[in-house]
């Protein structure tokens, strides 16, 4: 990955994204991730900004794909967060237990899974129209088409078509996640 002119990030695998897009898409997610270590929101925002800046100024680093870049961001934010905690440890009187926990690799990995998934879920629903959003929210709760239809006072056919629209939108929005088209989603499985 190199940060080229006009703010493009070019990966070794040939993909290319605008730094601005990468920033805007992921900023909130990374802040919430940072908040798993630090309670002050402003400090979190600072840390995430600094981490983006590190990427911006790296220029020479080679990442093969978006995945590597995201991993790098998580790692950097976590390290900066731990540094911050260690610095203010004395004033804030963080307990030793807390420190041990947040320093562990376990904590990092489960936080990453948590935040990465949650943010995708949030984005998925946020971009949908209110009707589609409602259908999907219920689907995520585990309801079958028939149950969703009853709940929302719609026909099953309408529920299915809302789902179709939703998934089409999602595939476009989250192309890095949806590589394969599946028609199975519309049916109850």
């Amino acid at each position, binding site marked *: 990955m190199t940060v080229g002119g006009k703010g493009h990030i070019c990966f070794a695998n040939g993909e290319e994204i605008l730094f601005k897009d990468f920033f805007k898409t992921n900023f909130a997610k990374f802040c919430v991730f940072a908040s798993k270590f630090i309670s002050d929101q402003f400090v979190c*925002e600072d840390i995430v*900004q600094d981490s*983006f800046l590190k990427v911006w100024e790296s220029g020479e680093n080679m990442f093969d794909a978006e995945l590597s870049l995201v991993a790098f961001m998580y790692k950097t934010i976590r390290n900066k967060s731990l540094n911050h905690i260690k610095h203010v440890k004395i004033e804030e009187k963080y307990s030793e237990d807390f420190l041990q926990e947040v320093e562990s690799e376990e904590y*990092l990995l489960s936080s*990453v899974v948590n935040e990465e998934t949650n943010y995708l*879920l949030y984005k998925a*629903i946020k971009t949908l129209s209110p009707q589609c959003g409602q259908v999907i929210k219920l689907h995520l709760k585990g309801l079958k088409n028939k149950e969703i239809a009853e709940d929302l006072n719609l026909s099953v056919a309408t529920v299915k078509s809302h789902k179709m629209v939703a998934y089409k939108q999602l595939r476009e929005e989250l192309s890095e996640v*949806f590589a394969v088209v599946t028609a199975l*989603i519309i049916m109850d499985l």
Partner: protein
Amino acid sequence: MELLKRHIKIARLIFKQRFSDLEKDDNAQIDAWLEEKEENRNVYQKIKEVEYSDLKHRYEGIDVDKNWKRFESKTQSKKIRILPSLGIAASIAVIFTLSVFVYNNIYKESELITLNPKQSVRLVLGSGENIKIGDVKEGMKLASGNISVDSKENKLVYSASNGIDVIENNTLIVPRAGFYHLVLSDGTKVWLNSDTKLTYPVSFVGDKREVTLSGEAYFDVAHNKEKPFVVRTSDMDVRVLGTVFNVNTHGDNGNVFTVLVKGKVEVSKGNIPKLVLKPGQMAERFVNGVGENEFKLKEVDVSQYLAWKDGVFSFRGTSLSEILRKIERYYDVKTVYTRNIEEEYFTGDISRDKSLKSVLNVLELSTNVKFELKGKRIYIK
């Protein structure tokens, strides 16, 4: 990092799984991950139970646009581009017209030269062979050393040879609108601006390190007390021990100069009294008659003279004609005056990343002059 990447992948699979059925293989990946640790199963369960409204609350408390603006200003703090029309003007792009004299320079249409298409940086080897920089191969065989090329960084690196005493010179030619970075075999780093030529030995043999320069270059000289480094130019020789400085022989302002950033240098030429520079000082020699036989010492703000290396045009009370000469060289264009203009002076910084059009726009907004860009010619109206 691999473990981390795997977990990000798992997260994305879980997301997909929540919406649809996954391919057998993907499901198997999640199952395998769940098997590994109880912690993993806990996370999985938590995700299943999350409420959208909680998520919404968490993420929407963050003002992304505001943060982006903050971030942008951090990345641009080194490159100041001010368009007076934005109203930020005053402190950075200030014009004060001192119509000292009328600048008279009218070109006839017939004298216009059609300029060459963009030329590439060239390297002349010891054998006399003149090749394009793109044709320099990794680990190329030279009589007394090795070269490696980093084409993404526009950089050429020479590595020291082992005990070979042959003196072989190479010349790097950077054309107009060019820029190049060179690392000599002793580790000295050189940045070459547009329209510059540097001749240097592949390997430094003997008790001196000597290079010859025509144009503008910024040197970060590797320290070596035993072998002083000397930059020879037609009007000024600069002798250094281990230091950082900028030499400009373009004569844009009728002068040739050296600006010292760090260390100590001595400038000399023929019978002209030598001058020793300290950091923050400039040695200047006027080459157009008056004051030609001396080096003048000046205290300067070095950043203005080094800005080009960081991709910025930096002007401090610089005349329009001098600015245009720099622009001509960097963008490889020619200025045509269709009328007499009064000399004007500028103070400001413009990022060299900008297109020529944008740069001319900035100048236009600060001045009475209008530019029209046609191909490779700038017409002054």
